[in-house]
């Protein structure tokens, strides 16, 4: 009896993000039934795709126990450089994407060097990159919006086999790739090990610096890709592009069950769900015509509940795993 209740509570707490998601859908359905149309759901996924890609990159870093605050600036710089290359040197879409990814990886490499070689705390190192990265981007763009040419932005609304929008397809590929990397390669398992304890990892013969560097480089790469996917949908890169996205990415990962202490969390379904969740809230609020000023408060309340559930779950699991000495009848 008691055991059954304990099991129920732990199932509930383990699936808190999912549960909140369902509750939210029900709430929207009740207030504004029209918000649950297929089109809105597809939009939620489409808009979630870019933040989801960035959040997956962020997940690598969070799993090592670090944090990357510079992804928003990274998105900006890499998109600006790719956009200018297309505008001025009429580079094609493919090479532009490649250039964008290279810039993102370089950005991530600088973070990696600061964290592993110069031993600067990730929070501080990536904060500095957030500020200076945006500065470099603005130098290139002269603070003006950079428009991507038509054929590229056409991709944003194009659909694969006129069924699935390209952003969602790319998102799905990234999810599959990241899950494969985390669970089926040595690097992935070592990222989890590093997040558990860096010192223990080093003693176990893991090249801790290399693994940590890889996480930051991958994060930079995925940030640039996420930025590109976003611009393809928006059409141009304005001076505020990417600002605040680092926090959405962190929120998506944490909503999806990634621990800020490192070592715990999964890309699928966790982070994917987290990213869709955040977009679904804003789409739902718009179509339910909720007061605009209330949007941030409601989003915050949902994130807060998810994180609260996570902490409740940890205390509860600790209590459960504590062995009873006496068998009480």
């Amino acid at each position, binding site marked *: 009896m008691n055991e059954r209740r304990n099991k129920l509570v732990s199932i509930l707490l383990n699936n808190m993000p999912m549960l909140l998601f369902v509750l939210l859908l029900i709430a929207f359905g009740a207030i504004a039934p029209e918000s649950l149309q297929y089109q809105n759901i597809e939009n939620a996924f489409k808009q979630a795709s870019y933040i989801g890609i960035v959040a997956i990159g962020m997940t690598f870093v969070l799993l090592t126990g670090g944090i990357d605050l510079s992804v928003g600036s990274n998105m900006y710089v890499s998109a600006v450089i790719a956009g200018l290359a297309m505008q001025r040197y009429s580079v094609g879409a493919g090479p532009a994407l490649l250039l964008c990814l290279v810039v993102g990886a370089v950005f991530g490499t600088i973070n990696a060097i600061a964290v592993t070689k110069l031993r600067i705390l990730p929070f501080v190192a990536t904060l500095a990159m957030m500020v200076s990265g945006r500065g470099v981007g603005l130098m290139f763009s002269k603070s003006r919006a950079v428009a991507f040419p038509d054929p590229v932005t056409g991709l944003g609304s194009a659909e694969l086999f006129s069924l699935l929008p390209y952003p969602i397809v790319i998102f799905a590929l990234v999810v599959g790739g990241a899950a494969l990397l985390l669970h089926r390669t*040595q690097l992935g398992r070592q990222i989890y090990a590093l997040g*558990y304890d860096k010192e223990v990892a080093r003693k176990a013969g893991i090249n801790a610096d290399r693994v940590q560097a890889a996480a930051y480089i991958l994060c930079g790469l995925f940030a640039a890709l996420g930025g590109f996917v976003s611009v393809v949908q928006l059409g141009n890169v304005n001076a505020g592009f990417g600002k605040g996205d680092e926090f959405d990415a962190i929120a998506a990962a944490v909503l999806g069950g990634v621990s800020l202490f490192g070592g715990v969390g999964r890309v699928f379904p966790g982070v994917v769900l987290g990213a869709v969740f955040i977009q679904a809230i804003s789409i739902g609020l718009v179509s339910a015509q909720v007061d605009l000023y209330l949007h941030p408060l409601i989003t915050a309340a949902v994130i807060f509940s998810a994180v609260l559930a996570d902490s409740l779950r940890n205390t509860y699991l600790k209590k459960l795993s504590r062995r009873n000495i006496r068998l009480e009848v």
Partner: protein
Amino acid sequence: MTRSALEFDRVSKSFFGVAALSDVTLSIPEGCLLGLIGENGAGKSTLMNALAGVITPDQGTMRLFGVPFHPTCPADATRAGIAFIHQELNLFSNLSVVDNLYIDGFPRLCRLPIIDKRKAYRQAAELLTAVDLCLSPATPIELLTPGERQLVEIAKALGRNARIIIFDEPTTSLTAAERSKLFQVIDNLRREGRTIIYISHSLDDVLRLADTIAVLRDGKLVSTGPGDQYSANRMVADMVGREIAQMYPARASAPGPESVLDVKSLTQPGMIKDISFTLHEGEVLGVFGLMGSGRSELARIVYGLDPFKSGSIRVRGTDAGAPSPIRSIRNGVAFVTENRRQEGLLMEAPVSENIDLSSLRRYARYGSARIIDRRAALKAARQMAESLQIKSGSIDRHRAKHLSGGNQQKVVIAKWLLTDPGILILDEPTRGIDVGAKYELYSIINDLASRGTAILYISSELEELTGMCDRILVMSNGEIQAQFRHSEFDQESVLQAAFRGRTTANQTEANGEN
């Protein structure tokens, strides 16, 4: 004549001018089990760290199977076939057994950077069978008991074809059943021709296992020879440099009449039931129980770390109220936990900060600004360190993690003594510390009792309790089963009481209190 697996030749190392190892020359034949003993700080860890490539000796050479060996990092030692099974296990508890076994070298799927899951599982299952551990390689480490984790570490060593395996205090957190299983596995390893270095303070274990024994003291090798030439007495004499005639210092005082701690029908479902006892001024009251008897849980509840459902705790006649550690400190209750590394010390902080930690409010100056008078705090810490004879470099710079186990425990006690506790709760205070330091601790406890401090002494070592206490309470199944006065101490009846009330359900490896 078998060849030498490992030779140390005049190895010396000093830190900041203090010799940690001087001129150690030792040769270990292949397939032999060497029992390495010595007090904390005698140089055992330094010697092993030299072997592991963590430190480089100042002088001397090492040879591995006759070949000169100069490791510069832990990976060098691993490659050379040396595996360490540490006291604190180095496993990732967020990962599965198979991940832990292959974390630095997974089998790959036809040279792709993809893990060959099937092969990894099959090999892992074989290794687990070799150490007699029946569980799925997919089990997360966090679900394993300390004994099972130890076996996983050994499986990991086997997976790397380790020819030399070093065990450092492997039995401290094991139950009796797990311990005998470990010994069986160790015997098997030796039969396969692997060379083993076994470091322990448990002299009985060393006598039971070792082919050869080596004793270190103050960085020097003081004696070595075949295991059957050693007795517990000789080992102690060699380690300490003198015969310890008596393990326990004599008590000069008797308990006073005044009761300082009154516990009445304390109950917490699933933990303890109906616990009542009175602790008097200057009394050393022992609490004995096997693992899982509820002894440590009782200590945590009395100190206020865990809640209780019914009953009362009165300190000096007044109700202690809702228990919390802060309340307890104000009431003059101090708690030395059984787990000093994780719960008792700030390992990265200097010794002096650790000592001052619980009495900082006393050095707060300038009214409500409460700025700490660092000089006064340091002075108090220094006095305390001197009176307990803590062996450390300059205490305001030397970090707690660099002290030996016995000295760390003294730091924890110093911290509490500085708060002038009327009641001191000690949970396994001598776990993992050496003979000499134990004796010093016993003397400190006697001295405190003679000055009127009431002491609740929790231990799983019966001999220690009979040597130290005025009374002993015996717990099992979360209840007090019996009570013995000093004149009635009798090991057999105490043990009988301790086994009473243990149902078959919790008799199976009742472990995992930590």
